[in-house]
């Protein structure tokens, strides 16, 4: 089933056959879109061992709902929308730990990490620093309101364009820009508040 480079016309035929209930035809669509779905699931959920199961559930959900696909947006965008919603349904049931490695560092180490993140390209940070930074951002995303999380993950982790995000979330591009701006600001505000709370606990 290596059809990752299938032309659009061919894809339309497969979609139409899948809409008649043909699982084989839907199966031809999977190799073309599986990489995108796996990447999206991984970046939204961040549990490596859960990705394949979730991806499978997403494709099954998409197959069941394919009659509702009306060719208005691209199939990839429609599938991304299902994947995003499915991941957030999953995340609502699984709450991650709220403790971050960052707060377990001494103040000097924190300052060193911040200085390195500021002055060096990320790839120059040592392994431990990278782990701490990734963990911190993951936890911040986990603490963020769901709408902020969605938009930040799609933009900052998946690197989708504002237009793509607008299609996936059924929003106008200008609304996406405004929400993205607010989400980043809220996340930084939350980091600051979290820092104050951590200091309070340390005292």
């Amino acid at each position: 089933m290596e059809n990752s480079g299938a032309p659009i016309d061919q894809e339309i035929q497969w979609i139409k056959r899948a809409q008649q209930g043909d699982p084989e035809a839907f199966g031809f669509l999977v190799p073309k879109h599986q990489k995108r779905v796996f990447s999206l699931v991984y970046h939204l959920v961040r549990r490596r061992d859960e990705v394949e199961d979730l991806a499978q559930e997403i494709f099954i959900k998409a197959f069941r709902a394919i009659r509702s696909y009306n060719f208005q947006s691209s199939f990839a965008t429609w599938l991304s929308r299902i994947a995003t919603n499915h991941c957030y349904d999953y995340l609502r049931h699984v709450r991650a730990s709220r403790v971050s490695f960052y707060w377990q560092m001494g103040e000097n180490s924190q300052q060193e990490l911040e200085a390195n993140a500021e002055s060096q390209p990320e790839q120059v940070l040592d392994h431990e620093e990278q782990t701490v930074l990734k963990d911190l951002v993951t936890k911040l995303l986990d603490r963020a309101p769901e709408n902020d999380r969605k938009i930040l993950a799609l933009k900052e982790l998946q690197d989708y364009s504002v237009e793509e995000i607008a299609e996936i979330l059924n929003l106008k591009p200008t609304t996406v820009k405004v929400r993205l701006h607010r989400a980043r600001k809220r996340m930084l505000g939350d980091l600051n508040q979290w820092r104050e709370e951590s200091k309070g606990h340390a005292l």
Partner: protein
Amino acid sequence: MRCDDVRDRLDISWEGQQPVEIRRHLTECAACARFHRDLRMVRAGFHLLQREEAPEPSLGFAERLVRRLGEVSKAPSVADFFELAGRRFVYATLALTLLALLALAVPSTGPVQSLSAADIQVPAQEASLIYSDPMGAGLQESPDLAPVETPTFTNEAK
């Protein structure tokens, strides 16, 4: 510059170089400098996360999926059940609403008000006038001309 404006501008130029006036403000305002450091740290964290490779589908993922889809397409899904049940519920509700509207719109006696038995019944006094023979007796003797006996008439005649 106001701190709020500076923070908005910092976010807008999330990926780019900061203008001179912003950099000057950052040297003078500790809170905004802290915000800027956090911003760069979070951005660096996002970049690191973005570069992480998602796991690859295991061998035969698509084939296994197609087999599952085959099973799924044979078994009616919960969504199908709710769709069917939902559709039936909507139809039933519509039918009931229509019946309720009809019941409200049409009067209980029907569209044309008909005469009731009481309306048809000739009052006893009137009946005695009609059937009293101004010319004398004999009417009652003729079976053709005799009025139909109703309990009212009969009682009155007696």
